[in-house]
């Protein structure tokens, strides 16, 4: 608990600093999502240096030494530990079915899946979800706030950064009393997560003009997608056409189903009125 309070205080101070930096610098017309851009860019390159100096070497070593089968087990193990907290957040968001499914996953994988090393639940059709307290707040109506790069943690928003200590609190690894075990597991998990992204820097270097901005836009888009559990409407313009015609609303699969259902009902009702009127005529 003390560690938790300390972390909250550290985060509060960090965010206060960021706000100071923001108010200190001259306003320049920039991305409306990113008023803290100056601070964020500095923190982004700081995180990048930490990554190159410490995290990436550890990760590369982990990735070279560990066979794929073991990596699969490691991923499953940490995924399983996360399911309890994910389930609780689903409950808090009122998604009882999803929450129960997450807890069911934890029960199944912790027993039949040998302490979570094997993801039996997914084979059974219980899908893994992705929730955290920031998403819960979003569902409760809290806005995301400006984009915010958290020291060591990376891309976030002010809302998500403020509740990061809550998510850390909900993390069973971080709650372990045995400190050496806790630290070992934390490093292992970090290495495992980072290993999934080993090819990413190269893609960002070669495939974008501005790594910082691309990462920011990607994070924000993906975050909004997660908050809405994938139901984000998309629109694709066609700039070759006239201004009015250029906005082509994009339909999701459920839209298509809904629309065709409505059309079918309309047809049915038209046929019915038609029948009625002809009956009337006969009379």
């Amino acid at each position, binding site marked *: 608990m003390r560690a938790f309070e300390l972390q909250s205080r550290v985060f509060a101070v960090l965010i206060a600093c960021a706000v100071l930096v923001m108010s200190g610098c001259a306003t320049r017309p920039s991305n409306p999502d990113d008023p803290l851009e100056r601070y964020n860019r500095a923190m982004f390159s700081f995180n990048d240096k930490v990554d190159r100096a410490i995290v990436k070497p550890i990760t590369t070593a982990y990735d070279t030494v560990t066979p794929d089968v073991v990596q699969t087990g490691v991923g499953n193990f940490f995924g399983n530990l996360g399911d309890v907290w994910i389930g609780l957040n689903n409950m808090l968001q009122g998604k009882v079915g999803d929450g129960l499914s997450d807890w069911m996953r934890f029960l199944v994988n912790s027993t039949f899946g040998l302490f979570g090393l094997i993801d039996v639940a997914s084979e059974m059709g219980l899908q893994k979800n992705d929730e955290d307290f920031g998403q819960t707040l979003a569902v409760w109506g809290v806005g995301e706030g400006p984009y915010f790069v958290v020291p060591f943690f990376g891309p976030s928003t002010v809302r998500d950064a403020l509740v990061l200590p809550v998510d850390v609190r909900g993390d069973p690894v971080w709650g372990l009393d045995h400190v050496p075990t806790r630290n070992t597991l934390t490093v292992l998990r970090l290495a495992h997560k980072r290993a999934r992204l080993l*090819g990413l820097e190269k893609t960002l270097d070669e495939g974008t003009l501005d790594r910082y*901005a691309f990462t920011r*836009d990607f994070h924000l888009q993906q975050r909004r997608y997660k908050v809405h559990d994938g139901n984000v409407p998309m629109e*694709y*313009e066609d*700039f*070759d056409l006239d201004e009015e015609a250029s906005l082509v609303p994009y339909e999701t699969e459920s839209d*298509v189903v809904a629309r065709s259902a409505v059309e079918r009902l309309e047809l049915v009702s*038209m046929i019915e009125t*038609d029948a009625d009127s002809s009956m009337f005529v006969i009379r």
Partner: protein
Amino acid sequence: MKSALIALCIAVFAIQPVGASANGPAPDELIRKLSDDVLEILRNDEKLRNGDVSNVVNLVEDLVLPHFNFRRMTMLAVGRDWRDASPEQQQRLMDAFYGMLVRTYSNALKQYRDQTIGVRPLRMSPSDKTVRVQTEIRQSGAQPVTVDYVLEQSADGWKVFDIVVAGVSLVTNYRGTFSQEIRVGGIDGLINSLETKGREFTRAPGQS
């Protein structure tokens, strides 16, 4: 009489096989075949697995990219400023963006390990001009990543114009950075940045 006509219309729509238009395979069939072909090559080519870059680039250019609509992709990445670009500028933007996508896509393929791709069957009505084919990249030990392909009908079959990875539209995700470049240096500024970036990586082929 009216009801009979409507009934006929419904019957016609019901009979017509959904999606299989006169030109080319249905969108989900196209994506399934494409991903099967690419995975097959990735699995069997030792050179590719050992990081021979040129082969991957050829694979992407010959097999994958002919099914993409680059004009639409570039337009969506550039955004509203596309209208103000001259045809010549548009062409240069397309060429430079093409190079960038080739590099991005090749890099992604080089990360291939043991993933499999599942394509969800598509439900669409015959009148649809734009569809979204949902796929899932499965890797043991990790959550599956959803990759959706957004396609539109064109004269020579369905063409992909956006790829949505884990909910993020790759094409429109470029828009923020591109409009930033345009604000600073105009459309020519963006063209220059893209072309410079391209030269940076074509100068040293084979390096990884």
